[in-house]
Structure formats: structure tokens, C-alpha cells
């Protein structure tokens, strides 16, 4: 992921509410995007969302 795309993701994340983020987390299936999501969630101190994202990454990896 380019630096520009990374910042775009971050800025998108920062403007969303907790409920919006939760919905978004269920929709993402790309592992790269999920990793970013987990990182942003820990930056913004959404500890439960970060844990959920990590859990989902492990689940998707197990399916491959």
C-alpha cells in the first residue's frame, strides 16, 4: 500500500463513528486493509475493535 493510500485510509477512519467502524470491520475481507484497521483502532484507542480485527485476520488466514 502506498503512503498516499495509507493516509487516505487513516483519514477515512478518523472521521467515522464507533458504530460505522464496526459495520466497516464486518465488510472488509482484504487482509492488508484489516491490518491497517487494527493499527488505526489501536492508535485511536478502540481496543475492542483492534482485537476483533486481529481475530478476523487469524480466521481468514486459517481458511486459506
Amino acid at each position, binding site marked *: 500500500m502506498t*503512503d498516499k493510500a495509507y*493516509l487516505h485510509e*487513516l*483519514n477515512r477512519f*478518523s472521521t467515522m463513528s464507533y458504530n460505522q467502524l464496526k459495520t466497516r470491520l464486518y465488510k472488509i475481507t482484504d487482509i492488508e486493509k484489516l491490518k491497517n484497521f487494527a493499527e488505526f483502532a489501536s*492508535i485511536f484507542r478502540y481496543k475492542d475493535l483492534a482485537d476483533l480485527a486481529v481475530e478476523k485476520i487469524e480466521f481468514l488466514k486459517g481458511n486459506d
Partner: protein
Amino acid sequence: MTGKTLFRQMAGMVHPDKATTSEHASGAKMREVLKHRNEPEVLLALARKWGLQLDGSFDSNAFDRNSSTFAGDVFEAVVGSIIKHNFTYKKGDSALHGVVVNIRKITKGYRKGAFEYKIYDFKDGTVWTLKSYEKQPFNKIVGNADESTLKTGQDKVDRINAGNKAVKKLRQDMADNTFASIGIKKNKSYQGSGVHVLVGYRGDVYKWHELIRTTAKSVYIPNGYKERRIPVGSVRKIKLVA
């Protein structure tokens, strides 16, 4: 009644030359009286302490600075003075009526050289700060507080100061934690080091900025030809750009 007559009357009793006629005559007392010759509240307190038998007109300790009989006299508030001040824009209709707990001279900042008066209002138990370049920023000095009232005021001010200090320490601790977690040091110059910080502050979008320097609780990033202060709590991440 003026401060001058009070001073003359007291000096007549405590001057060392009056040793034959007055039992209060002493050099130490005369020095005290001379020191406070322009502070009638203090003179009256001293007279009470020493048990001087003053002229009947000195029984009252009410001083009105705006009264016509006080024209030309200089009255200064000292620690322990009871003051009245019209503070209408802050206290509504009621005037500030309290005791001066602390006087300090401001030594730095844009009000350098001014006096700061901390006043404990014993009607509602609040503490007020008045800053002024004059030595007498009050409408009236109406008397001298007893020790217990002054002590109550001092305790209240101490409690407020302790609270402020605790909050300051808490904020510094939080800043220290953030500095440690993102991995930069405080009070350090980062000019030309290639460290960039990810900052989105006050509704700005998140961007990478070059880091110039850090202070105890802040980081500085370039802003045109100037620099901009950002609280360290708003820094999300750092990266090193070679």
C-alpha cells in the same frame, strides 16, 4: 480620623524619649510604628496587641478610603486586610467582601511589575485574584481580619494550589507516557534528523510533518516560514525518512 493623627498619637506613647511618662516606650515598638506609618489598619492592630489606651476616636477599625476625611492619605492593603471591592461584572450585585490572603509581585510575562492579590471571600468561601499595577486596587479597606479568618483563607488558597499542582503533574505524566510510547524524547531538537510525525490536529487531515523540536508537553512542526506547536497527545506515529 486620619492615619496621620493615629500615627502621631501612637508615636507619642511608644517613643523611647517618653520612658518617664509612658510604660509602652521602647525602641523596637517605635520602629514598628514608623514602618507602618501609612497603614492605619496595621497601626490599630499593633495598638490592640500592646494594649495602648488610644483616644476614643480610634475605637472603630472601619476605614473608608473614599471618605472625605481620608483625602491625601495613602492606604495600602496588607496581608490580613479586610477589603470591599465592587466586582459587579463577576459577582452580580454583591460586592467582593473578603480578606487579603497573599500579595505577590508578578516577575514575568506581559503583566510584569504588577501586583497579584489573592482574596478569600468569607461570605461564600470563594477565592478571587485581582491583578493591578496600583498598590491599592480596592474600593475600600474596611478593617483587619482576626487570625482564624486569615488562617481559613490561607488553607483554602493552599488547597486550590495543591489541586492545580496535582492537575499539572497529571498532564505531565500523560505527556511523558505518550513520548515514551511513540518513541521520541522531550526537550530535544530534531532539526535535520529526518524524523517525521503523523499529526491530525484540530480538524486537519492526517499528514506526515517534519519534526523540528520537542518541549515538555509539545512537538513543533514547520508552518510556512514559522513553526507550529502541537500537543504531543495529537501525535499518532513517527517515521524516519532518510
